[in-house]
């Protein structure tokens, strides 16, 4: 008898902007994480909303993993993996 474990995927919110090199790097890391575990990604371009832009313009890339983990700026892969409980 097969037991299938139904788990809700982790909600990930990624604040980014075109021309942000650190964001490109963080995006590649998220792709690498996707190969290891499943998650639901919401990508937000900070320029779409002036309020969000003011809040994150000097902080991006900002990644919310789940309800309480925030990673920002220069993000290391091990930090991201740890946020997904992979390491």
């Amino acid at each position: 008898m097969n037991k299938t474990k139904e788990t809700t995927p982790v909600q990930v919110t990624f604040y980014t902007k075109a021309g942000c090199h650190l964001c490109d790097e963080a995006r590649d890391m998220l792709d690498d994480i996707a190969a290891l575990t499943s998650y639901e990604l919401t990508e937000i371009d900070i320029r779409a909303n002036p309020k969000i832009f003011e809040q994150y313009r000097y902080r991006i890339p900002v990644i919310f993993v789940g309800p309480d983990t925030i990673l920002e700026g220069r993000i290391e892969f091990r930090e991201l993996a740890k946020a997904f409980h992979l390491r």
Partner: protein
Amino acid sequence: MAVQQQIQPSYTQYTGRRSKLSTLGYRIGEFIYEYWATMLTVALGLLVLAAISVPFLSYLGLDWLSKQIFYALHTVCAQIPAHSFYVFGHQLGMCARNLSIYSSMFVGCLIFVLSGKRMKGIPWWFWLLLILPMAIDGTTQMFGWRESTWELRVITGVLFGLGNVWFALPLVQKTLLETPMQPRISIPLPPQQADTSTETA
């Protein structure tokens, strides 16, 4: 006598090979001796230029180049976004502190070169005094005791960069001037063989 005849050809062969290598080494040494400060200035200038060029290249649509420079500069800077300057909405290749350090080092080196490498150095205690503000600012921020500002990062970075250059470069130049350069060929010839070797050459 038989021993002398055996030694002589091998000696000529040896000096022949050595002279080409030693001449090349001597020329490289001479070049570095003469232009070491200029080379350092150019290297620092290129580093600062690279850091400043990143946002401009992004703005001009040369993102592929801008990205490579930005990634390469990560070897010398942590590039924390909140600690960096932005031009046209794009982050510079280095944080405010590192940009100030390398820029002031570049300016200091340039002044040293333009002074004909005659700039007088500073005593060690004054050098310590100049690097101390950055040590305090950086350490207290690193341990999370307080958060620095961009003004403090720039001021302490400039003092650190200028202090290092002002202390180290005159000292290097003084040491180089005090050290005599080696002659081109350092193998002394035995007096009885001097005439024979001249004929061979």
